[in-house]
């Protein structure tokens, strides 16, 4: 039995390879993810070990505001602390250092140099005794001198001697670049980070907000004193106002942060793997079903000569197992390649300059590759295996035309499963699941897809018939259409492969499109500002501009009102909250949709604040209530609620609004947004030009009308869209494989028909056209399904998010049209090989009877 199985397996290599490719791809992404994470993780470990080599213990301040993002950046230690540290026995050396992210260098092209995630550090020059190594020039000695690391110099296009603008806590300041440095191990950067080094007081002023403070005190232990021992001594001596950690602990913490950042890539890869494997399941199911259908006689003969049902099931499953193992092995190999490639890209294209000693292949990669690959294949082959076992022995003796089994049971199952998936999805969207929300959503989507896939055969016949009408003018077109409607299950499963990918992509598109549309509606109908100063969102520090611009803008003829908006995180009644400071709240209410429900928004005296109705209700606050506020600088202050407002929409303003004075104690005392209202009849473009000129030294922001503002703020979706395009490419690749596979098998199955058609005069080109039409009909069917399901999915999500401000459901018609056209192309492309095969059918061979 086993030998017969393996033999038949070998005779159908090509088809099985085709169906196995999807598994290979899926396994490749799974193992690629593992390899990438552990390779980069290992290299980062070795990197941070060298970075913290000179640090035995570090003492840093506790952040006044914690739980928010800018955390340790606002934590400082006073200069006096160095003395206290030195007094502790076992301390060989103690150095105060400044190292804070948020130093943005303006490159030779006038644009701010960005990174794809790593920090843009501003530091105090502490010499080259630690891991810094001067490459050219010298260390900074004067207040207007800086040195930068080599990767930053290259990215900014600057050289020693150049005048370089740097944005910090303060607006643009210009320095002379006097030195370029690297790091121990001949590195240009530490994991992609940029570093600007000032002399100590300048670094303190620009990065920490005042002189006389440091980010941390770095301690070297005296010989023979273990870092842990020294840490405990320091802790005891300094009290719990400070954080004392060993270099080892800092190294671990850094690695942890790095791993977290990596987990994003990991999740993307695993997402790809999920899609590939899920779709691959359909492909394998289809291949095995067709193979079983084609081998009915052979299987019946086996039954007739005594094979048991279990043997039949076993024979199919053994085939599946072999394919699964082979596909997993191939996938693992490809995954190691992909992981290595991505690690390489991460290192060189991402400019991280990570040391890369070797490619790490963790056991988890191998185990998961084989577990996932074989399991998926076996599960997919289960149904066809059962079907094979149901072939009656008499089928060997009589001509059994594959009967059209009724689709009722399938449809009922489809409805049930879709309902279950929908319910899980609904539960997840309603936010009832708590920690289970994410699994509920993902599971809901997968189960719904499975259910819908089961329903597709039901829809396939009518839809395909209608679709095919487009091609019915020519005989080959009509035959192709008939063929595609012939076996609704086969057509449906093949189309479902394309459906899944397209539905996911369309769903995300709908959500993003709706977000943009909702935002647009909101800005268009509610925002009354004529010009808005703002920067593109994203990046490690929010774009800001020189506050002086606000005052100067007011002087421009035609400008009626100007409001500046500052943002930060503050502790309010002991919990982190996003806060906003505005220069003129009354003017703001005239430009943005804020409405007082209690108290007043007309004035906001010092020591007062306004809060939105939702938070006010949560905390039981009313006009006149007081709250304890702790900003990045200064102690805890008590502020009085002047007004409660509703902003009943998505607008970011939501939250605590503080008077302008409070912004001085924000970590960054520079506005991120500016709103301008112009006098009636003012020349908008003229005013714009003048403001543009004012912003010359604030390259992170631009001024534009509402349309420009909308375009800028929606640009944050671009990365997501790029990811989606990748996913689309993968989904299409697998769908093409599916269509090729199904058509190749169909052509084989219909060799005689093709021969007959050729005998009675069908030309080769017509035979090819016939196959092409069949393929296009299948792929367009899949695309339509995907677009419909994706739109439904996206619209459901958008509806569920209505409270979060998704007011509009918008369908990306243009993209959807593109996908449909793409489906036609994909279909035609997938048809190429099977069509050539069909055209090559030997007439005599086909009509010769056994």
């Amino acid at each position, binding site marked *: 039995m086993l030998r017969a199985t393996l033999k038949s397996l070998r005779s159908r290599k090509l088809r099985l390879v085709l169906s196995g490719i999807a598994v290979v791809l899926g396994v490749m992404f799974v193992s690629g993810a593992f390899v990438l994470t552990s390779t980069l993780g290992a290299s980062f470990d070795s990197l941070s070990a060298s970075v913290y080599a000179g640090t035995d213990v570090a003492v840093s301040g506790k952040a006044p505001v914690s739980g928010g993002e800018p955390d340790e950046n606002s934590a400082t230690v006073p200069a006096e602390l160095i003395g206290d540290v030195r007094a502790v026995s076992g301390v060989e050396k103690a150095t105060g250092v400044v190292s804070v992210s948020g130093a943005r260098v303006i490159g030779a092209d006038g644009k701010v140099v960005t990174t794809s995630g790593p920090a843009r550090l501003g530091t105090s020059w502490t010499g080259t005794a630690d891991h810094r190594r001067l490459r050219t020039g010298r260390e900074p000695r004067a207040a207007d001198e800086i040195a930068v690391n080599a990767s930053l110099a290259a990215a900014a296009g600057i050289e020693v001697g150049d005048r370089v603008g740097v944005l910090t806590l303060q607006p643009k300041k210009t320095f002379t670049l006097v030195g370029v440095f690297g790091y121990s191990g001949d590195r240009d950067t530490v994991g992609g980070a940029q570093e600007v080094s000032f002399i100590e007081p300048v670094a303190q002023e620009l990065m920490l907000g005042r002189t006389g403070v440091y980010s941390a005190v770095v301690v070297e232990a005296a010989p023979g004193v273990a870092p842990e021992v020294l840490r405990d001594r320091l802790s005891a001596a300094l009290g719990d106002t400070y954080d004392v950690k060993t270099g080892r602990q800092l190294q671990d913490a850094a690695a942890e942060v790095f791993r977290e950042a990596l987990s994003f890539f990991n999740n993307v890869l695993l997402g790809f793997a999920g899609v590939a494997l899920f779709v691959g399941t359909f492909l394998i199911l289809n291949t095995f079903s067709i193979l079983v259908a084609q081998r009915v006689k052979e299987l019946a003969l086996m039954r007739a000569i005594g094979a048991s049902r279990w043997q039949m099931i076993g024979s199919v499953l053994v085939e599946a197992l072999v394919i699964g193992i082979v596909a997993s092995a191939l996938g693992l190999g490809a995954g190691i390649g992909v992981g290595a490639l991505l690690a390489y890209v991460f290192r060189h294209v991402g400019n991280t300059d990570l040391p890369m000693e070797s490619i790490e292949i963790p056991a988890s990669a191998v185990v998961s590759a084989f577990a996932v690959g074989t399991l998926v294949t076996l599960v997919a082959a289960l149904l066809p295996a059962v079907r094979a076992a149901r072939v009656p022995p008499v089928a060997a003796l009589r001509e059994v035309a594959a009967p059209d089994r009724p689709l009722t049971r399938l449809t009922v199952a489809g409805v049930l499963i879709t309902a279950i998936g929908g319910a899980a999805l609904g539960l997840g969207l309603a936010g009832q699941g708590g920690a289970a929300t994410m699994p509920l959503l993902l599971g809901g989507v997968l189960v719904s897809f499975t259910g819908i896939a089961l329903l597709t055969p039901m829809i396939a016949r009518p839809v395909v018939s209608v679709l095919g009408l487009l091609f019915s003018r020519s005989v080959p077109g009509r035959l192709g259409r008939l063929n595609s409607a012939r076996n609704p299950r086969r057509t449906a499963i093949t189309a479902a492969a394309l459906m899944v990918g397209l539905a996911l992509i369309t769903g995300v598109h709908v959500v993003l499109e709706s977000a943009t549309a909702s935002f647009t509606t909101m800005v268009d109908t509610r925002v009354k500002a004529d010009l808005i100063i703002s920067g593109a969102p994203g990046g490690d520090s929010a774009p800001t501009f020189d506050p002086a611009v606000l005052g100067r803008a007011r002087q421009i003829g035609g400008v009626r009102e100007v409001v500046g908006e500052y943002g930060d995180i503050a502790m309010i009644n002991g919990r982190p909250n996003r806060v906003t400071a505005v220069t003129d709240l009354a003017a703001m209410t005239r430009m943005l949709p804020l409405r007082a429900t209690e108290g007043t928004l007309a004035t906001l005296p010092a020591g007062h604040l306004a809060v939105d109705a939702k938070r006010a209700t949560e905390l039981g606050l009313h006009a006149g209530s007081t709250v304890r506020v702790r900003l990045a600088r200064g102690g805890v202050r008590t502020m009085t609620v002047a007004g409660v407002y509703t902003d009943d929409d998505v607008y970011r303003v939501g939250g605590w609004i503080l008077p302008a004075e409070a912004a001085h104690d924000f970590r960054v005392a520079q506005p991120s947004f500016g709103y301008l209202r112009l006098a009636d009849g003012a020349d908008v473009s003229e005013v714009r030009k003048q403001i543009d000129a004012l912003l010359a030294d604030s390259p992170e922001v631009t001024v534009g009308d509402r349309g420009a503002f909308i375009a800028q703020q929606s640009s944050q979706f671009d990365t997501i869209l790029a990811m989606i395009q990748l996913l689309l490419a993968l989904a299409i690749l697998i769908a093409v494989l599916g269509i090729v596979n199904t058509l190749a098998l169909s052509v084989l199955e219909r060799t005689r*028909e093709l021969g007959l*058609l050729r*005998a*009675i*005069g*069908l030309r080769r080109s017509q035979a090819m056209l016939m196959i092409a039409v069949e393929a296009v009909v299948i792929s367009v069917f899949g695309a339509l399904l995907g677009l419909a399901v994706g739109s439904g999915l996206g619209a459901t999500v958008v509806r569920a998010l209505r409270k979060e401000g998704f007011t509009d459901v918008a369908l990306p018609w243009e993209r959807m049209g593109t996908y449909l056209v793409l489906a036609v192309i994909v279909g035609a492309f997938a048809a190429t090989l099977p069509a050539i095969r069909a055209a090559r059918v030997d007439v*005599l061979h086909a*009509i010769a*009877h056994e």
Partner: protein
Amino acid sequence: MQTTTTGPPGAEARQDATVAARAVDVWKVYGSGEAQVAALRGVSVDLGRGRFTAIMGPSGSGKSTLMHCLAGLDTVTRGEVHIGDVLVTGLGDAKLTRLRRDQVGFIFQQFNLLPSLTAQENILLPLSIAGRKPDRDWFAQVIEIVGLGDRLSHRPSQLSGGQQQRVACARALVARPNVIFADEPTGNLDSRSGAEVLGFLRRSVRDYGQTIVMVTHDPNAASYADRVVFLADGEVRAELHAPTADAVLDTMGRLDTGPVGAGRTVGA
């Protein structure tokens, strides 16, 4: 009724107007080297226009091979094949396809119909492929001859074997090809259905002047033809005109005394 042996190749006059298809010294050799098999060994035969010709012979005698060569489905190793005034030998695939589409009709032993098309669609398929409009009167007449009036919208799976074969006959007839080739059209049918099919094949020759060439090993089927050509061992051995079943059986019997079976291996 008379029995003649065939004359030397090309002995019969080239009366093109009366010849629908012709084979001249046709050889067909399969395989190469040791495994070489000559299925046809210098066959020359003229198939008269408006006549019903049967090609008889024991299994393996080369009947199907001859038919395939005559119909332009297969290439010959040596010799020439003509259909009407077209020299088939040496034509490329495109021209052959056209020739089959416009000049030739086929009826096979089995698997004649496309399962996804109705009877009517199957019948009209050659015309649709060629992009020709069916002649309504002729179509009605053909349907009448084969007696399928009430089955036109059925699919092949809903028809009996005999009905399926009649649909195949109708399909061959409706395009009015120069010549119809039928390979054991009654091979899979019971005797009554077989007789029906043979009956209207003969009728279409008598009443409408259709040319039909039928391969069969059934003497009874051969007796419906105007002329029977006997093949054995890849060679034409005998010929009968206006045969009866008994005469065919008789001739077959005499052929059987000679070496019969797979073509002999021929030297290079």
